[in-house]
């Protein structure tokens, strides 16, 4: 009986401790005010030895490569800890609840930066604190409302851009695909793969129905739904990641659809037969930004990070996979992404531009704009109805 009581006491104590730990507030705090006084030099002149910078991004999306993360750590003597997320909703919830760790810098796409800014999660930053910002191509600089508020304050700094454009496999497609409506060709039945995100899908539906998707308020959703309904028999599957879209391509089941620039570059690098076209009626574009989290206590280091990832050195390696002494741990080539640094863009050769989707350049890029809550509800309902094949 004594042994039983001792065991019961031990178990009860453990459960009580678990309960208390689970209800405790998270460690780390982002409540300290940002010190806006000192500018980020960008040359590693200030030592950040012993300090840790927490950055949030998608896993394996460039910033955690050795030439980016390791190089930054060596340059500034600090530690960079990556916090990964699987959706922007998860990231937003993470920031709202203080996060499992303190997060100082986040990577957010253009269609979400406004939400984060309106929720007070990211702060405006003086561009003077990020000297390399002046080298960003003018097309991507100070874009309102993605990165600049109505007072002209900058809250998001561009990092990379790309397209989710039309791609097809000439080994299986014996005709030229030039427009989104070409996906309706009966020869492609059951072999079209689309990105499962509602934003891209609704833009494609809008373009097929001959509408302008960049103005959500003027969009006739019934026409978009009708266009998507025509597309349904063509669909093999919806992908949600690079792996998923590449898997269907490798197996020869995915003949056409939309594709991110990164996987397209990977297929080209591997010598696979793939063509990417930018339809004249418009192609889907994205612009990824880095932002400083409001209330961070590592403001200077966060600015150094953004300054570093916008630098010529980092952007050149990101675009070409070359020009660095830092090798990937498994020896595989680095994935490449289109840069925003104008000097890097000017110096790229044609062969380097093609896998990045920069040659030829798209004539018209459609970016998903800020949607009001009611518009988001309507868009997601339309898209879910399409995916669920509910008439």
């Amino acid at each position: 009986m004594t042994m039983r009581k001792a065991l019961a006491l031990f178990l009860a104590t453990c459960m009580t401790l678990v309960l208390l730990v689970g209800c405790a507030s998270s460690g780390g705090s982002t409540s300290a005010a940002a010190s806006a006084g000192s500018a980020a030099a960008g040359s590693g002149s200030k030592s950040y030895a012993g300090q840790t910078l927490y950055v949030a991004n998608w896993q394996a999306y460039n910033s955690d490569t050795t030439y980016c993360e390791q190089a930054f750590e060596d340059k500034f003597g600090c530690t960079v800890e990556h916090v990964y997320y699987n959706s922007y909703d998860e990231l937003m919830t993470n920031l709202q609840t203080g996060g499992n760790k303190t997060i100082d810098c986040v990577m957010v796409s253009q269609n979400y930066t406004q939400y984060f800014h309106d929720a007070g999660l990211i702060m405006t930053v003086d561009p003077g604190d990020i000297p390399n910002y002046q080298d960003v191509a003018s097309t991507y600089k100070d874009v309102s409302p993605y990165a600049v508020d109505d007072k002209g304050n900058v809250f998001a700094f561009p990092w990379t851009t790309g397209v989710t454009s039309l791609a097809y496999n000439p080994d299986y497609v014996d005709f030229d695909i030039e427009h989104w409506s070409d996906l309706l060709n009966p020869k492609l039945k059951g072999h079209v793969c689309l990105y499962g995100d509602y934003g891209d899908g609704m833009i494609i539906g809008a373009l097929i129905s001959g509408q302008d998707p960049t103005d959500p308020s003027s969009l006739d959703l019934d026409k978009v739904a009708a266009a998507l309904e025509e597309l349904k028999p063509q669909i093999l599957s919806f992908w949600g990641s690079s792996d998923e879209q590449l898997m269907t391509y490798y197996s020869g089941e995915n003949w056409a659809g939309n594709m991110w620039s990164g996987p397209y570059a990977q297929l080209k690098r591997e010598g696979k037969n793939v063509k990417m076209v930018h339809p004249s009626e418009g192609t889907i574009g994205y612009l990824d930004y880095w932002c400083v989290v409001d209330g961070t206590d590592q403001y200077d280091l966060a600015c150094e990070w953004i300054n570093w990832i916008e630098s010529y050195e980092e952007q050149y390696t990101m675009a070409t996979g070359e020009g660095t002494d830092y090798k990937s741990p498994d020896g595989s080539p680095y994935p490449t992404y289109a840069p925003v640094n104008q000097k890097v863009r000017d110096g790229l050769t044609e062969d380097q531009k093609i896998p990045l989707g920069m040659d030829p350049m798209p004539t018209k890029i459609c970016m998903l704009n800020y949607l009001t809550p009611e518009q988001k509800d309507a868009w997601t309902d339309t898209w879910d109805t399409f995916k669920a094949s509910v008439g």
Partner: protein
Amino acid sequence: MDKKVKRTFNPVSLWTLPSAGLLLCLTILPLVMLLIFSFMNRNLFPGQAWPGWTLDNLTRLMQSKTFWVLLAKSLGIGTEVTVICIVASYPAAWAIAKIVKPRSRSILMMVVILPFFTSQLLLIYAMMNLVQSGGIILTALQALGIEGKSILYTNGATVLILVYEYLPYMILCLYSSLESISDNLIHASHILGANRAETFINIVFPMSVPGLLSGILLVFVPVVGSFVEPGLVGGSNGMMVGSVINSQYKDNMNMGYGAILSCVLLIVLCLIIACVSFATKRAQRKIGGEV
């Protein structure tokens, strides 16, 4: 008249407080919050004021044909997967419990629980590689001169993956019940002239009902709510009700609407499980009687 027994306070009962606290914090409180959020206007984050009450979520739910159609589809797939698991698990659990030698039993149990040692996503990708076009199975069939078509990106693939994932749960639950059936009862049944089918119906099945109900609970409920598997392998028609709920949190950032969808799914599942439990226990009493 009998005197009422005076109840005295037992201090040992205080030791249940931690577990009761965990149950309250991790089960009851979240359910209550889910119900409250169902009538909330969109989102609530720490530090923000209450966004207001609304019936819009309920109105939207009632008008949403997509949700109800997908709910019916998900219940259908859940039933299909559960039935397949039951049919496949009974022979396996019986063999492990009654037929194989005790030394082999532990090895077979290890084989059954081996999938739990690895990531669920890895299992799914492994199965995808097996059944996709150009995968191992189709390549082997082609080598034998058999033409086949990949079932990947169909509802069949969704069912296959879900059966593969949840079969061990059913086997374990049935095994625990079947193992407790005394061999003497089976022997007595045969001596009294019952064949194997009659023995199963009158002896084995009634005594395995507790394990069966546990297995149904562990398989049916998560299968109905799954969204990862149908998203990866279900193809163009792979969407299930879990996908709609997921999209409200992941894409639409509408916590209130996602909560009411979750509540409705929860209520429907509870009703179904209650009906299944009632029907199964009734069958247990009617067929086998009390043992």
